[in-house]
């Protein structure tokens, strides 16, 4: 049914970027569906911004092609690409009023004066900042400036909206609010958006699709749930969320489960996803939030539940949750984030740690 599938709005084909001998982006193929919000996620220096800047036309790919709406745009100059770009530091023109800032892109688009006025007012309305058109950017707060930057980018009705860490200059509370605002606006307009961030929470909460990158290479692409729950490798599992990594060997395989003997000698049951065979060495990934913490003498109700005895070694209270470091019998330490369904355990207390098999994700050991 490949023919009935809609053509992706943005396509990277064998894209690659080198600066001298340094490779910023390794050969990569990637598609972005129309109307979706795609996040490029990774630590700094992973090539995510380079990728974005290549779409914008601010960098030239060393190899490969970029298509927008099926048209190869490698040689299209920036100002003819019809993209809306939003920068980390807003980049509002400091010498122009808010009105002139937002109207900037329209001046180059054969729009009459009256229409410009109307569109600018509409855009300001959309970012919930009507009435600031005569002010200068320096008279607005950071969050307001970022909204004006959004208004300036969307008013030209771009084919693709490019956002380069747009929220990272804002403080924590405002960031949360702006994240929702960006999300709402994107859905309302239905504009295809590429969002660059190193913040996993931003990526998980907003994206239709996440592309996780490391050292210029694509690690995994998928929707937030897939990337979070079924990471393909150690890096992805480690970068998103708080994970415990436990090495072991598969000692038994049946239809539903695999049994893994972990480094402490304990047996651990995980769901069988038919990817590993008896005797394989594997790495188990368990999210810190997936463990349950119960009293030492509590008995498991389900037979397949993994259960270990342990002792609280350290804990930090974080208001909504408690972060524990627990020493298992053989000295192995694990990290648990508990939502306090039971009570808060104190340091030194003996406890029982439980985790369901479907929360134990298996990875091949990387050489």
């Amino acid at each position: 049914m490949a023919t009935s599938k809609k053509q992706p709005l943005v396509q990277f084909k064998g894209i690659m970027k080198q600066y001298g001998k340094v490779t910023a982006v390794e050969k990569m193929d990637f598609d972005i569906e129309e109307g979706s919000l795609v996040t490029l996620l990774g630590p700094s220096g992973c090539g995510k911004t380079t990728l974005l800047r290549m779409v914008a036309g601010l960098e030239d790919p060393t190899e490969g092609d970029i298509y927008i709406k099926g048209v190869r745009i490698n040689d299209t100059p920036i100002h003819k690409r019809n993209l809306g770009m939003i920068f980390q530091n807003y980049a509002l023109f400091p010498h122009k009023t808010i009105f002139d800032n937002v109207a900037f892109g329209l001046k180059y688009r054969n729009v009459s004066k009256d229409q410009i006025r109307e569109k600018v007012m509409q855009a300001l309305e959309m970012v919930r900042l009507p009435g600031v058109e005569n002010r200068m950017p320096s008279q607005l707060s950071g969050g307001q400036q970022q909204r004006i930057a959004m208004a300036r980018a969307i008013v030209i009705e771009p084919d693709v909206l490019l956002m380069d860490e747009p929220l990272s200059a804002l403080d924590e509370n405002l960031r949360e609010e702006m994240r929702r605002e960006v999300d709402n606006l994107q859905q309302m307009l239905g504009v295809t958006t590429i969002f660059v961030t190193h913040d996993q929470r931003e990526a998980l909460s907003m994206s239709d699709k996440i592309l996780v990158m490391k050292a210029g290479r694509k690690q995994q692409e998928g929707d937030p749930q897939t990337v979070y729950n079924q990471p393909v490798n150690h890096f992805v599992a480690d970068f998103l969320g708080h994970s415990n990594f436990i090495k072991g060997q598969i000692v038994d395989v049946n239809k539903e489960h695999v049994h893994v003997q972990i480094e402490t000698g304990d047996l651990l049951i995980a769901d069988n996803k038919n990817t590993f065979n008896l005797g394989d060495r594997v790495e188990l990934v368990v999210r810190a939030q997936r463990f349950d913490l119960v009293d030492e003498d509590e008995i498991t109700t389900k037979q397949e539940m993994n259960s270990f005895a342990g002792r609280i070694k350290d804990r930090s209270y974080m208001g909504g949750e408690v972060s524990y470091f627990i020493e298992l019998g053989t000295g192995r330490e694990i990290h648990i984030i508990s939502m306090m369904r039971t009570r808060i355990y104190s340091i030194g207390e003996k406890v029982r740690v439980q985790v369901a098999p479907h929360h134990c994700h298996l990875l091949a050991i990387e050489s």
Partner: protein
Amino acid sequence: MRRSSIGWKLIRLHTILVYIFMFTPIVVVIVLAFNPKQFGIFPMEGFSFRWFVKLAQNDSIIDAFKNSLILGGLTAVLSTSIGIMAALAFIRFDFRGKNTINTLLLSPIMIPEVVLGVALLLFLRFLQQPKSFALLLIGHVVLTLPYVLLIVQARLVGIKKEYEEAAKSLGANGFQTFMEVTFPLLLPAILAGALFSFTISFDDITATLFWATAENQTVPVKIFSMLRNSISPEINALGTVMIVMTVATPLLAGYLSRKFTNLKA
């Protein structure tokens, strides 16, 4: 810290003396310009604009003044335009030999003006061209370009590339981006650079002595040749006019730029 300690008193006294030492000659020149007598002797006997009137009637001085103004103006325009382009190239682009060219352009600051003056003359001889106004202009552009370059570069470093990138992403081509974004943001530095060029050109003497011809005398060169014949009180008047011009121009520019920004905000 106690302001009344001996140390502080000494520092204050020292400062005052330095200022007196620096400014007394200038004040004397200005005061004597209004002295009606032929010889500058204190106490003054009256007050008159006699020497200024005489100055205004002296055609050769008026010519020198015109020369200086035209030369300074053209130097400012040329230096700033070349300076802007060079600064853009150095800050916004990468190319081979960038540092070498930058150093070369800045070197006139470090080379003694006498050497520069002779060098340009020798070069002209090599090209077998006569001295001319064009030579003077080229010389002054070479002299003032480093200042423009330094000022504009410093400002350009502070203007984030994102402004230009944002303008381009919104549909402005390179030239429109420069006119709409880069130039207005650079304007204070451009004005400062132009002002520097003008004032440096207006009162340069060392190098200009080598380059000026009889027809292309500037005011400082004129004063110098007048001094060789006699010490006329006209020179005091001329000096006063020079001082007023070189001090007033930057002050006026500063006032205008402040007024300009206030209107915008």
